[in-house]
Protein backbone atom coordinates (compact mmCIF):
# COMPACT_ATOMS: atom_id res chain seq x y z
CA UNK A 1 0.00 0.00 0.00
CA UNK A 2 2.07 2.92 -1.26
CA UNK A 3 0.59 6.30 -0.61
CA UNK A 4 3.26 8.67 -1.74
CA UNK A 5 0.93 11.66 -1.67
CA UNK A 6 0.66 11.64 2.13
CA UNK A 7 4.01 13.37 2.87
CA UNK A 8 3.24 15.93 0.18
CA UNK A 9 -0.12 16.72 1.74
CA UNK A 10 1.48 17.06 5.16
CA UNK A 11 4.18 19.42 3.92
CA UNK A 12 1.59 21.48 2.06
CA UNK A 13 -0.63 21.58 5.13
CA UNK A 14 2.17 22.78 7.39
CA UNK A 15 3.20 25.38 4.81
CA UNK A 16 -0.38 26.62 4.61
CA UNK A 17 -0.58 26.94 8.39
CA UNK A 18 2.79 28.73 8.37
CA UNK A 19 1.41 31.33 5.98
CA UNK A 20 -1.54 32.14 8.23
CA UNK A 21 0.05 35.06 10.13
CA UNK A 22 0.57 36.78 6.79
CA UNK A 23 -3.20 36.92 6.24
CA UNK A 24 -4.57 36.87 9.76
CA UNK A 25 -3.57 40.12 11.35
CA UNK A 26 -5.85 40.24 14.39
CA UNK A 27 -4.57 38.84 17.64
CA UNK A 28 -7.51 36.70 18.72
CA UNK A 29 -7.53 34.02 16.02
CA UNK A 30 -3.76 33.91 16.11
CA UNK A 31 -3.91 33.40 19.85
CA UNK A 32 -6.36 30.52 19.42
CA UNK A 33 -4.07 28.94 16.86
CA UNK A 34 -1.12 29.22 19.20
CA UNK A 35 -3.32 27.52 21.80
CA UNK A 36 -4.01 24.67 19.37
CA UNK A 37 -0.32 24.27 18.55
CA UNK A 38 0.70 24.23 22.20
CA UNK A 39 -2.01 21.66 22.95
CA UNK A 40 -0.73 19.52 20.07
CA UNK A 41 2.78 19.66 21.52
CA UNK A 42 1.66 18.70 25.02
CA UNK A 43 -0.68 15.98 23.75
CA UNK A 44 1.91 14.53 21.39
CA UNK A 45 4.45 14.53 24.22
CA UNK A 46 2.06 12.62 26.49
CA UNK A 47 1.11 10.26 23.67
CA UNK A 48 4.57 8.67 23.71
CA UNK A 49 4.35 7.31 27.23
CA UNK A 50 0.55 7.22 27.58
CA UNK A 51 -0.45 6.28 24.05
CA UNK A 52 2.30 4.09 22.67
CA UNK A 53 3.50 2.56 25.92
CA UNK A 54 0.06 2.56 27.57
CA UNK A 55 1.38 4.01 30.84
CA UNK A 56 -1.29 6.53 31.78
CA UNK A 57 0.63 9.27 33.49
CA UNK A 58 -1.70 11.81 35.03
CA UNK A 59 1.26 13.79 36.29
CA UNK A 60 2.69 15.34 33.16
CA UNK A 61 2.28 18.75 34.70
CA UNK A 62 5.52 17.87 36.51
CA UNK A 63 7.56 17.96 33.28
CA UNK A 64 5.52 20.78 31.76
CA UNK A 65 6.13 22.84 34.90
CA UNK A 66 9.83 22.00 35.06
CA UNK A 67 10.21 23.31 31.52
CA UNK A 68 8.24 26.43 32.37
CA UNK A 69 10.13 27.23 35.55
CA UNK A 70 13.54 26.44 34.05
CA UNK A 71 13.25 28.87 31.17
CA UNK A 72 11.62 31.64 33.20
CA UNK A 73 13.80 31.42 36.30
CA UNK A 74 16.98 31.22 34.19
CA UNK A 75 15.78 34.09 32.02
CA UNK A 76 15.36 36.15 35.17
CA UNK A 77 18.98 35.29 36.01
CA UNK A 78 20.11 36.52 32.59
CA UNK A 79 20.37 33.26 30.64
CA UNK A 80 19.14 33.35 27.04
CA UNK A 81 15.74 31.62 26.60
CA UNK A 82 16.98 28.95 24.18
CA UNK A 83 19.54 27.81 26.73
CA UNK A 84 16.85 27.93 29.40
CA UNK A 85 14.53 25.82 27.29
CA UNK A 86 17.28 23.30 26.63
CA UNK A 87 18.11 23.18 30.33
CA UNK A 88 14.41 22.60 31.05
CA UNK A 89 14.36 19.53 28.83
CA UNK A 90 17.49 18.16 30.46
CA UNK A 91 16.16 18.67 33.96
CA UNK A 92 12.78 17.17 33.00
CA UNK A 93 14.53 14.17 31.43
CA UNK A 94 16.66 13.69 34.52
CA UNK A 95 13.60 13.87 36.79
CA UNK A 96 11.75 11.49 34.47
CA UNK A 97 14.60 9.03 34.73
CA UNK A 98 14.47 9.16 38.51
CA UNK A 99 10.67 9.02 38.69
CA UNK A 100 10.41 6.38 36.00
CA UNK A 101 12.96 4.08 37.56
CA UNK A 102 10.81 3.84 40.67
CA UNK A 103 7.23 4.27 39.45
CA UNK A 104 7.21 2.49 36.10
CA UNK A 105 7.37 -0.81 37.92
CA UNK A 106 3.88 -0.09 39.21
CA UNK A 107 0.90 -1.22 37.20
CA UNK A 108 -2.47 0.20 36.26
CA UNK A 109 -4.07 2.38 38.88
CA UNK A 110 -0.98 2.37 41.07
CA UNK A 111 1.11 3.99 38.35
CA UNK A 112 -1.57 6.62 37.78
CA UNK A 113 -1.65 7.45 41.47
CA UNK A 114 2.13 7.60 41.75
CA UNK A 115 2.35 9.95 38.77
CA UNK A 116 -0.16 12.29 40.37
CA UNK A 117 1.69 12.20 43.68
CA UNK A 118 4.98 13.15 42.00
CA UNK A 119 3.40 16.13 40.24
CA UNK A 120 1.68 17.21 43.42
CA UNK A 121 4.96 17.07 45.36
CA UNK A 122 6.58 19.32 42.74
CA UNK A 123 3.68 21.78 42.86
CA UNK A 124 3.87 21.99 46.64
CA UNK A 125 7.65 22.41 46.51
CA UNK A 126 7.24 25.24 44.00
CA UNK A 127 4.78 26.93 46.33
CA UNK A 128 7.26 26.57 49.17
CA UNK A 129 10.53 27.56 47.46
CA UNK A 130 9.67 31.25 47.32
CA UNK A 131 13.24 32.42 46.79
CA UNK A 132 13.27 30.69 43.40
CA UNK A 133 9.64 30.61 42.31
CA UNK A 134 8.13 33.54 44.19
CA UNK A 135 5.59 31.06 45.58
CA UNK A 136 1.89 31.49 44.98
CA UNK A 137 2.34 35.07 43.81
CA UNK A 138 3.93 33.79 40.64
CA UNK A 139 6.41 35.32 38.24
CA UNK A 140 5.93 37.87 35.49
CA UNK A 141 8.08 36.59 32.67
CA UNK A 142 10.89 38.94 31.62
CA UNK A 143 11.29 40.09 28.03
CA UNK A 144 13.21 38.04 25.55
CA UNK A 145 16.41 39.52 24.20
CA UNK A 146 16.05 40.10 20.45
CA UNK A 147 17.26 37.32 18.20
CA UNK A 148 20.08 38.55 15.97
CA UNK A 149 22.05 36.88 13.24
CA UNK A 150 25.23 38.50 11.96
CA UNK A 151 24.20 41.90 13.25
CA UNK A 152 20.68 41.79 11.79
CA UNK A 153 17.72 41.60 14.14
CA UNK A 154 15.53 38.72 13.02
CA UNK A 155 12.83 39.26 15.60
CA UNK A 156 12.45 41.13 18.84
CA UNK A 157 9.65 38.83 20.06
CA UNK A 158 6.91 41.42 20.18
CA UNK A 159 3.39 40.47 19.13
CA UNK A 160 2.08 37.00 18.43
CA UNK A 161 3.70 35.89 15.15
CA UNK A 162 7.09 34.95 16.66
CA UNK A 163 5.35 32.74 19.21
CA UNK A 164 3.14 31.34 16.51
CA UNK A 165 6.17 30.16 14.54
CA UNK A 166 7.87 28.74 17.59
CA UNK A 167 4.70 26.88 18.55
CA UNK A 168 4.30 25.60 15.01
CA UNK A 169 7.88 24.40 14.99
CA UNK A 170 7.45 22.64 18.31
CA UNK A 171 4.15 21.02 17.31
CA UNK A 172 5.63 19.73 14.05
CA UNK A 173 8.66 18.46 15.89
CA UNK A 174 6.57 16.65 18.55
CA UNK A 175 4.31 15.01 15.96
CA UNK A 176 7.38 14.04 13.92
CA UNK A 177 8.92 12.39 16.99
CA UNK A 178 5.66 10.43 17.39
CA UNK A 179 5.78 9.35 13.76
CA UNK A 180 9.39 8.26 13.98
CA UNK A 181 8.75 6.29 17.15
CA UNK A 182 5.67 4.65 15.63
CA UNK A 183 7.72 3.35 12.73
CA UNK A 184 10.78 2.14 14.57
CA UNK A 185 11.65 -0.75 16.86
CA UNK A 186 10.98 1.43 19.90
CA UNK A 187 7.39 1.97 18.81
CA UNK A 188 6.75 -1.72 18.18
CA UNK A 189 8.21 -2.65 21.53
CA UNK A 190 6.18 0.01 23.31
CA UNK A 191 2.99 -1.23 21.67
CA UNK A 192 3.82 -4.79 22.67
CA UNK A 193 4.25 -3.55 26.23
CA UNK A 194 0.91 -1.74 26.05
CA UNK A 195 -0.94 -4.80 24.75
CA UNK A 196 0.45 -7.24 27.29
CA UNK A 197 3.37 -6.50 29.57
CA UNK A 198 3.84 -10.08 30.64
CA UNK A 199 3.82 -11.37 27.08
CA UNK A 200 6.25 -8.63 26.05
CA UNK A 201 8.52 -9.59 28.91
CA UNK A 202 8.44 -13.26 28.01
CA UNK A 203 9.41 -12.31 24.47
CA UNK A 204 12.56 -10.84 25.95
CA UNK A 205 11.64 -7.17 25.59
CA UNK A 206 13.37 -5.27 28.41
CA UNK A 207 10.30 -3.59 29.87
CA UNK A 208 11.88 -1.01 32.13
CA UNK A 209 14.43 0.10 29.52
CA UNK A 210 11.78 0.91 26.93
CA UNK A 211 9.23 2.33 29.33
CA UNK A 212 11.89 4.62 30.80
CA UNK A 213 13.05 5.68 27.34
CA UNK A 214 9.47 6.56 26.42
CA UNK A 215 8.95 8.54 29.60
CA UNK A 216 12.24 10.36 29.13
CA UNK A 217 11.42 11.49 25.59
CA UNK A 218 7.89 12.35 26.61
CA UNK A 219 9.10 14.44 29.55
CA UNK A 220 11.69 16.32 27.49
CA UNK A 221 9.02 17.30 24.95
CA UNK A 222 6.46 18.20 27.62
CA UNK A 223 9.07 20.51 29.13
CA UNK A 224 9.38 22.34 25.80
CA UNK A 225 5.61 22.76 25.68
CA UNK A 226 5.73 24.16 29.20
CA UNK A 227 8.59 26.52 28.41
CA UNK A 228 6.85 27.94 25.40
CA UNK A 229 3.48 28.19 27.14
CA UNK A 230 4.96 30.08 30.08
CA UNK A 231 6.82 32.59 27.93
CA UNK A 232 3.80 33.04 25.68
CA UNK A 233 1.32 33.78 28.48
CA UNK A 234 4.14 35.67 30.24
CA UNK A 235 2.89 34.88 33.72
CA UNK A 236 3.22 31.73 35.74
CA UNK A 237 2.47 30.36 39.18
CA UNK A 238 2.66 26.83 40.60
CA UNK A 239 -1.04 26.13 40.14
CA UNK A 240 -1.23 27.12 36.50
CA UNK A 241 1.99 25.36 35.47
CA UNK A 242 2.15 22.38 37.84
CA UNK A 243 -1.54 21.83 38.63
CA UNK A 244 -3.62 18.74 37.89
CA UNK A 245 -5.44 20.67 35.14
CA UNK A 246 -2.34 20.56 32.96
CA UNK A 247 -2.00 16.81 33.34
CA UNK A 248 -5.67 16.24 32.61
CA UNK A 249 -5.40 18.46 29.54
CA UNK A 250 -2.55 16.36 28.17
CA UNK A 251 -4.57 13.17 28.58
CA UNK A 252 -7.82 14.66 27.36
CA UNK A 253 -6.30 15.90 24.11
CA UNK A 254 -5.17 12.36 23.33
CA UNK A 255 -8.39 10.69 24.48
CA UNK A 256 -10.44 12.99 22.29
CA UNK A 257 -8.24 12.49 19.26
CA UNK A 258 -7.30 8.86 19.71
CA UNK A 259 -4.75 7.45 22.13
CA UNK A 260 -1.61 5.98 20.60
CA UNK A 261 -2.17 7.30 17.07
CA UNK A 262 0.08 9.82 15.32
CA UNK A 263 -2.70 12.19 14.33
CA UNK A 264 -4.82 11.72 17.45
CA UNK A 265 -3.16 14.54 19.44
CA UNK A 266 -3.55 16.88 16.46
CA UNK A 267 -7.26 16.18 16.01
CA UNK A 268 -7.81 16.19 19.78
CA UNK A 269 -5.96 19.48 20.28
CA UNK A 270 -8.01 21.25 17.62
CA UNK A 271 -11.34 20.06 19.02
CA UNK A 272 -10.24 20.62 22.60
CA UNK A 273 -8.94 24.16 22.12
CA UNK A 274 -11.85 25.38 20.03
CA UNK A 275 -14.39 23.93 22.43
CA UNK A 276 -12.55 25.39 25.38
CA UNK A 277 -12.62 28.83 23.73
CA UNK A 278 -16.40 28.59 23.37
CA UNK A 279 -16.82 27.28 26.89
CA UNK A 280 -14.62 30.04 28.29
CA UNK A 281 -16.90 32.57 26.70
CA UNK A 282 -20.13 31.12 28.08
CA UNK A 283 -19.09 29.53 31.35
CA UNK A 284 -16.12 31.83 32.11
CA UNK A 285 -14.31 30.45 35.13
CA UNK A 286 -16.43 27.29 35.23
CA UNK A 287 -15.34 26.32 31.72
CA UNK A 288 -13.85 23.09 33.05
CA UNK A 289 -17.45 21.96 33.60
CA UNK A 290 -17.78 21.60 29.86
CA UNK A 291 -14.46 19.80 29.62
CA UNK A 292 -15.49 17.34 32.28
CA UNK A 293 -18.73 16.65 30.45
CA UNK A 294 -16.76 16.29 27.23
CA UNK A 295 -14.41 13.81 28.86
CA UNK A 296 -17.34 11.74 30.12
CA UNK A 297 -19.06 11.83 26.75
CA UNK A 298 -15.86 10.93 24.90
CA UNK A 299 -15.22 7.92 27.08
CA UNK A 300 -18.81 6.68 26.97
CA UNK A 301 -19.46 7.21 23.29
CA UNK A 302 -16.08 7.61 21.59
CA UNK A 303 -13.65 5.41 23.50
CA UNK A 304 -11.19 5.27 20.56
CA UNK A 305 -11.29 9.01 19.98
CA UNK A 306 -11.82 10.86 16.70
CA UNK A 307 -9.21 8.77 14.88
CA UNK A 308 -11.08 5.63 15.95
CA UNK A 309 -14.24 7.14 14.51
CA UNK A 310 -12.43 7.87 11.25
CA UNK A 311 -11.18 4.28 11.06
CA UNK A 312 -14.63 2.92 11.74
CA UNK A 313 -16.24 5.14 9.08
CA UNK A 314 -13.58 4.10 6.59
CA UNK A 315 -14.16 0.42 7.31
CA UNK A 316 -17.88 0.89 6.89
CA UNK A 317 -17.52 2.67 3.57
CA UNK A 318 -15.21 -0.11 2.37
CA UNK A 319 -17.61 -2.85 3.47
Amino acid at each position, binding site marked *: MKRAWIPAVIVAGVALVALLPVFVKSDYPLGVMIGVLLAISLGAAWNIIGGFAGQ*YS*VGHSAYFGIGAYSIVVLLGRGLAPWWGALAGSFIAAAVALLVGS*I*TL*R*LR*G*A*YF*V*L*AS*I*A*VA*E*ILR*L*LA*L*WAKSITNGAEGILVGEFPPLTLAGHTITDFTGKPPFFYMALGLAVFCVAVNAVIAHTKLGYYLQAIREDQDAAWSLGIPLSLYKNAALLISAALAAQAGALTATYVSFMDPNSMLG*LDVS*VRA*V*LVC*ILGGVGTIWGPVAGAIVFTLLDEVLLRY*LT*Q*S*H*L*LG*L*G*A*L*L*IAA*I*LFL*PDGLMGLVTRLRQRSRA
Partner: protein
Amino acid sequence: MIRLLQAVLGGLLTGGVYALIGAGLSLIFGVLRVINFAQGELVMLGMYLTWLLFTFLHLDPFVSLIVVMPVLWMLGWALEALLLDRMHGALPQNQILLTMGLGLVLSNGAMMAFTSDYRLVSTTYSSSSFMLAGVALSQPLAVSFVLTAAIATALWVFLARTDTGMAIRATAQDRDAAQLMGIDVRRMSRLAFGIGAALAGAAGALIAPTYYIFPQVGGSFTLKAFVVVVLGGLGSVVGAMLGGLIIGITESLSATYISTELKDVCVYSLFLIVLIARPGGLLGKAE
Protein backbone atom coordinates in the same frame (compact mmCIF):
# COMPACT_ATOMS: atom_id res chain seq x y z
CA MET B 1 6.73 16.05 74.93
CA ILE B 2 3.49 18.04 75.11
CA ARG B 3 4.20 19.20 71.59
CA LEU B 4 4.52 15.64 70.35
CA LEU B 5 1.35 14.56 72.16
CA GLN B 6 -0.47 17.57 70.75
CA ALA B 7 0.65 16.66 67.25
CA VAL B 8 -0.29 12.99 67.54
CA LEU B 9 -3.71 13.61 69.08
CA GLY B 10 -4.50 16.44 66.67
CA GLY B 11 -3.44 14.23 63.76
CA LEU B 12 -5.59 11.40 65.01
CA LEU B 13 -8.65 13.65 64.97
CA THR B 14 -8.19 14.81 61.36
CA GLY B 15 -7.07 11.30 60.41
CA GLY B 16 -10.49 10.00 61.36
CA VAL B 17 -12.06 12.09 58.62
CA TYR B 18 -9.53 10.89 56.06
CA ALA B 19 -10.30 7.36 57.18
CA LEU B 20 -13.97 7.86 56.41
CA ILE B 21 -13.29 9.22 52.93
CA GLY B 22 -10.76 6.47 52.28
CA ALA B 23 -13.12 3.75 53.48
CA GLY B 24 -15.69 4.92 50.95
CA LEU B 25 -13.13 4.96 48.16
CA SER B 26 -11.93 1.53 49.16
CA LEU B 27 -15.42 0.07 49.21
CA ILE B 28 -16.13 1.45 45.76
CA PHE B 29 -12.85 0.10 44.44
CA GLY B 30 -13.41 -3.27 46.03
CA VAL B 31 -16.78 -3.82 44.40
CA LEU B 32 -16.52 -1.91 41.11
CA ARG B 33 -12.74 -2.12 40.55
CA VAL B 34 -12.91 1.57 39.72
CA ILE B 35 -10.84 4.23 41.43
CA ASN B 36 -13.21 7.07 42.03
CA PHE B 37 -11.34 10.29 41.27
CA ALA B 38 -14.46 12.25 42.17
CA GLN B 39 -14.43 11.08 45.79
CA GLY B 40 -13.15 14.44 47.05
CA GLU B 41 -15.83 16.24 45.07
CA LEU B 42 -18.44 14.18 46.90
CA VAL B 43 -16.90 15.44 50.14
CA MET B 44 -17.20 18.96 48.73
CA LEU B 45 -20.88 18.40 47.96
CA GLY B 46 -21.39 17.18 51.51
CA MET B 47 -19.77 20.38 52.79
CA TYR B 48 -21.95 22.63 50.63
CA LEU B 49 -25.10 20.75 51.58
CA THR B 50 -24.19 21.18 55.23
CA TRP B 51 -23.54 24.86 54.62
CA LEU B 52 -26.94 25.26 52.93
CA LEU B 53 -28.74 23.51 55.76
CA PHE B 54 -26.84 25.58 58.33
CA THR B 55 -27.32 28.93 56.61
CA PHE B 56 -30.95 28.60 55.60
CA LEU B 57 -32.42 26.14 58.09
CA HIS B 58 -30.00 26.76 60.98
CA LEU B 59 -29.39 23.05 61.20
CA ASP B 60 -26.38 22.05 63.26
CA PRO B 61 -23.73 20.50 60.98
CA PHE B 62 -23.49 17.35 63.05
CA VAL B 63 -27.27 16.93 62.97
CA SER B 64 -27.28 17.53 59.23
CA LEU B 65 -25.57 14.16 58.81
CA ILE B 66 -29.01 12.57 58.79
CA VAL B 67 -29.85 14.58 55.67
CA VAL B 68 -26.46 14.66 53.97
CA MET B 69 -25.78 10.94 54.08
CA PRO B 70 -29.05 9.80 52.44
CA VAL B 71 -28.84 12.53 49.79
CA LEU B 72 -25.28 11.60 48.85
CA TRP B 73 -26.23 7.92 48.94
CA MET B 74 -28.93 8.55 46.36
CA LEU B 75 -26.55 10.62 44.26
CA GLY B 76 -23.96 7.83 44.36
CA TRP B 77 -26.59 5.27 43.40
CA ALA B 78 -27.70 7.40 40.46
CA LEU B 79 -24.15 8.07 39.26
CA GLU B 80 -23.38 4.37 39.28
CA ALA B 81 -26.55 3.54 37.39
CA LEU B 82 -26.07 6.29 34.80
CA LEU B 83 -22.32 6.29 34.23
CA LEU B 84 -20.25 3.58 35.82
CA ASP B 85 -22.59 0.70 35.07
CA ARG B 86 -21.85 1.18 31.37
CA MET B 87 -18.13 1.11 32.03
CA HIS B 88 -17.99 -2.42 33.42
CA GLY B 89 -15.09 -4.25 31.83
CA ALA B 90 -13.76 -1.10 30.13
CA LEU B 91 -10.07 -0.20 30.30
CA PRO B 92 -9.12 0.91 33.82
CA GLN B 93 -7.61 4.08 32.37
CA ASN B 94 -10.91 5.03 30.82
CA GLN B 95 -12.74 4.38 34.06
CA ILE B 96 -10.30 6.67 35.86
CA LEU B 97 -10.78 9.39 33.26
CA LEU B 98 -14.55 9.04 33.49
CA THR B 99 -14.52 9.71 37.21
CA MET B 100 -12.03 12.56 36.66
CA GLY B 101 -14.51 14.09 34.24
CA LEU B 102 -17.21 13.63 36.82
CA GLY B 103 -15.04 15.43 39.37
CA LEU B 104 -14.55 18.36 37.00
CA VAL B 105 -18.28 18.56 36.37
CA LEU B 106 -19.08 18.51 40.09
CA SER B 107 -16.48 21.06 41.17
CA ASN B 108 -17.19 23.47 38.35
CA GLY B 109 -20.92 22.95 38.74
CA ALA B 110 -20.49 23.94 42.37
CA MET B 111 -18.59 27.01 41.24
CA MET B 112 -21.49 28.03 39.03
CA ALA B 113 -24.00 27.41 41.79
CA PHE B 114 -22.11 28.87 44.74
CA THR B 115 -19.39 31.08 43.14
CA SER B 116 -15.81 30.56 44.23
CA ASP B 117 -16.23 32.56 47.45
CA TYR B 118 -15.06 30.86 50.62
CA ARG B 119 -17.99 29.81 52.78
CA LEU B 120 -17.94 29.18 56.48
CA VAL B 121 -20.15 27.22 58.80
CA SER B 122 -19.42 29.29 61.88
CA THR B 123 -21.05 27.52 64.76
CA THR B 124 -20.69 28.73 68.33
CA TYR B 125 -18.23 25.91 68.93
CA SER B 126 -16.22 26.18 65.71
CA SER B 127 -13.11 27.44 67.43
CA SER B 128 -13.63 26.17 70.94
CA SER B 129 -11.27 23.63 72.42
CA PHE B 130 -10.82 21.59 75.55
CA MET B 131 -7.89 20.20 77.48
CA LEU B 132 -6.99 16.53 77.54
CA ALA B 133 -3.83 15.36 79.31
CA GLY B 134 -2.44 18.87 79.10
CA VAL B 135 -3.17 19.10 75.38
CA ALA B 136 -5.63 21.50 73.77
CA LEU B 137 -7.93 19.75 71.32
CA SER B 138 -10.48 21.26 68.97
CA GLN B 139 -13.98 20.54 70.24
CA PRO B 140 -15.70 20.16 66.84
CA LEU B 141 -12.91 17.88 65.61
CA ALA B 142 -13.29 15.75 68.72
CA VAL B 143 -17.05 15.47 68.19
CA SER B 144 -16.49 14.62 64.57
CA PHE B 145 -13.99 11.95 65.60
CA VAL B 146 -16.53 10.31 67.86
CA LEU B 147 -19.14 10.39 65.11
CA THR B 148 -16.59 9.03 62.64
CA ALA B 149 -15.89 6.14 64.98
CA ALA B 150 -19.63 5.48 65.26
CA ILE B 151 -20.13 5.52 61.48
CA ALA B 152 -17.09 3.31 60.96
CA THR B 153 -18.38 0.81 63.50
CA ALA B 154 -21.80 0.78 61.88
CA LEU B 155 -20.18 0.20 58.50
CA TRP B 156 -18.11 -2.64 59.90
CA VAL B 157 -21.12 -4.33 61.48
CA PHE B 158 -23.08 -3.92 58.25
CA LEU B 159 -20.35 -5.46 56.11
CA ALA B 160 -19.43 -8.22 58.52
CA ARG B 161 -22.78 -9.29 59.90
CA THR B 162 -25.66 -8.61 57.54
CA ASP B 163 -26.56 -10.64 54.46
CA THR B 164 -26.43 -7.56 52.23
CA GLY B 165 -23.08 -6.52 53.66
CA MET B 166 -21.71 -9.99 53.05
CA ALA B 167 -23.10 -9.92 49.53
CA ILE B 168 -21.17 -6.71 48.91
CA ARG B 169 -17.98 -8.32 50.17
CA ALA B 170 -18.65 -11.42 48.10
CA THR B 171 -19.10 -9.28 45.00
CA ALA B 172 -15.76 -7.63 45.73
CA GLN B 173 -13.96 -10.95 46.15
CA ASP B 174 -15.38 -12.80 43.15
CA ARG B 175 -18.01 -11.21 40.97
CA ASP B 176 -18.94 -14.37 39.06
CA ALA B 177 -19.10 -16.56 42.13
CA ALA B 178 -21.29 -13.93 43.82
CA GLN B 179 -23.77 -14.16 40.96
CA LEU B 180 -23.86 -17.93 41.36
CA MET B 181 -24.99 -17.33 44.95
CA GLY B 182 -28.00 -15.45 43.60
CA ILE B 183 -26.54 -12.02 44.33
CA ASP B 184 -27.51 -9.22 41.96
CA VAL B 185 -24.02 -7.81 41.48
CA ARG B 186 -25.18 -4.75 39.61
CA ARG B 187 -27.36 -3.81 42.53
CA MET B 188 -24.41 -4.37 44.86
CA SER B 189 -22.31 -1.99 42.74
CA ARG B 190 -24.96 0.66 43.07
CA LEU B 191 -25.23 0.06 46.77
CA ALA B 192 -21.45 0.23 47.23
CA PHE B 193 -21.16 3.46 45.27
CA GLY B 194 -24.04 4.87 47.24
CA ILE B 195 -22.42 3.97 50.55
CA GLY B 196 -19.06 5.30 49.38
CA ALA B 197 -20.69 8.59 48.43
CA ALA B 198 -22.58 8.73 51.74
CA LEU B 199 -19.32 8.24 53.64
CA ALA B 200 -17.70 11.06 51.65
CA GLY B 201 -20.74 13.26 52.33
CA ALA B 202 -20.57 12.41 56.02
CA ALA B 203 -16.92 13.43 56.09
CA GLY B 204 -17.89 16.71 54.42
CA ALA B 205 -20.53 17.42 57.02
CA LEU B 206 -18.19 16.51 59.87
CA ILE B 207 -15.41 18.86 58.79
CA ALA B 208 -17.70 21.69 57.67
CA PRO B 209 -17.39 23.57 61.00
CA THR B 210 -13.57 23.63 60.82
CA TYR B 211 -12.77 24.04 57.10
CA TYR B 212 -13.20 26.68 54.44
CA ILE B 213 -15.79 25.55 51.89
CA PHE B 214 -15.03 26.30 48.25
CA PRO B 215 -15.57 24.48 44.94
CA GLN B 216 -12.01 23.19 44.53
CA VAL B 217 -11.66 21.88 48.07
CA GLY B 218 -12.30 18.30 46.90
CA GLY B 219 -9.06 17.81 44.98
CA SER B 220 -6.83 17.53 48.01
CA PHE B 221 -9.29 15.16 49.69
CA THR B 222 -9.26 12.90 46.66
CA LEU B 223 -5.48 12.72 46.77
CA LYS B 224 -5.43 12.11 50.51
CA ALA B 225 -8.04 9.40 50.12
CA PHE B 226 -5.83 7.62 47.58
CA VAL B 227 -2.93 7.74 49.95
CA VAL B 228 -5.10 6.39 52.74
CA VAL B 229 -6.37 3.55 50.61
CA VAL B 230 -3.02 2.54 49.18
CA LEU B 231 -1.53 2.51 52.68
CA GLY B 232 -4.31 0.24 53.85
CA GLY B 233 -4.43 -1.87 50.69
CA LEU B 234 -6.87 -1.17 47.84
CA GLY B 235 -10.26 -2.67 48.63
CA SER B 236 -9.72 -3.14 52.36
CA VAL B 237 -12.08 -1.04 54.44
CA VAL B 238 -10.37 -1.83 57.74
CA GLY B 239 -7.02 -1.00 56.15
CA ALA B 240 -8.41 2.34 55.01
CA MET B 241 -9.34 3.18 58.59
CA LEU B 242 -5.79 2.50 59.72
CA GLY B 243 -4.37 4.36 56.71
CA GLY B 244 -6.48 7.42 57.54
CA LEU B 245 -5.13 7.63 61.06
CA ILE B 246 -1.54 7.18 59.85
CA ILE B 247 -1.96 9.98 57.31
CA GLY B 248 -3.53 12.29 59.87
CA ILE B 249 -0.64 11.74 62.27
CA THR B 250 2.04 12.03 59.54
CA GLU B 251 0.51 15.27 58.39
CA SER B 252 0.35 16.78 61.82
CA LEU B 253 3.84 15.59 62.84
CA SER B 254 5.38 17.09 59.70
CA ALA B 255 3.47 20.33 60.23
CA THR B 256 4.84 20.51 63.76
CA TYR B 257 8.42 19.45 63.13
CA ILE B 258 9.12 20.35 59.50
CA SER B 259 6.85 23.01 58.05
CA THR B 260 3.14 23.54 57.56
CA GLU B 261 3.73 24.19 53.89
CA LEU B 262 5.55 20.91 53.41
CA LYS B 263 3.22 18.62 55.36
CA ASP B 264 1.54 17.33 52.23
CA VAL B 265 4.91 16.80 50.57
CA CYS B 266 5.71 14.48 53.46
CA VAL B 267 2.38 12.68 53.09
CA TYR B 268 2.85 12.10 49.37
CA SER B 269 6.47 11.05 49.82
CA LEU B 270 5.38 8.52 52.41
CA PHE B 271 2.80 7.37 49.89
CA LEU B 272 5.40 6.85 47.17
CA ILE B 273 7.67 4.99 49.56
CA VAL B 274 4.90 2.65 50.66
CA LEU B 275 3.71 2.19 47.08
CA ILE B 276 7.15 1.07 46.02
CA ALA B 277 8.11 -0.92 49.09
CA ARG B 278 4.78 -2.64 49.74
CA PRO B 279 2.54 -2.45 46.67
CA GLY B 280 -0.14 -4.48 48.45
CA GLY B 281 -0.54 -1.89 51.19
CA LEU B 282 0.72 -1.95 54.77
CA LEU B 283 -1.69 -4.68 55.81
CA GLY B 284 -1.69 -6.53 52.51
CA LYS B 285 0.75 -9.15 51.37
CA ALA B 286 3.88 -7.79 49.73
CA GLU B 287 3.91 -8.79 46.07
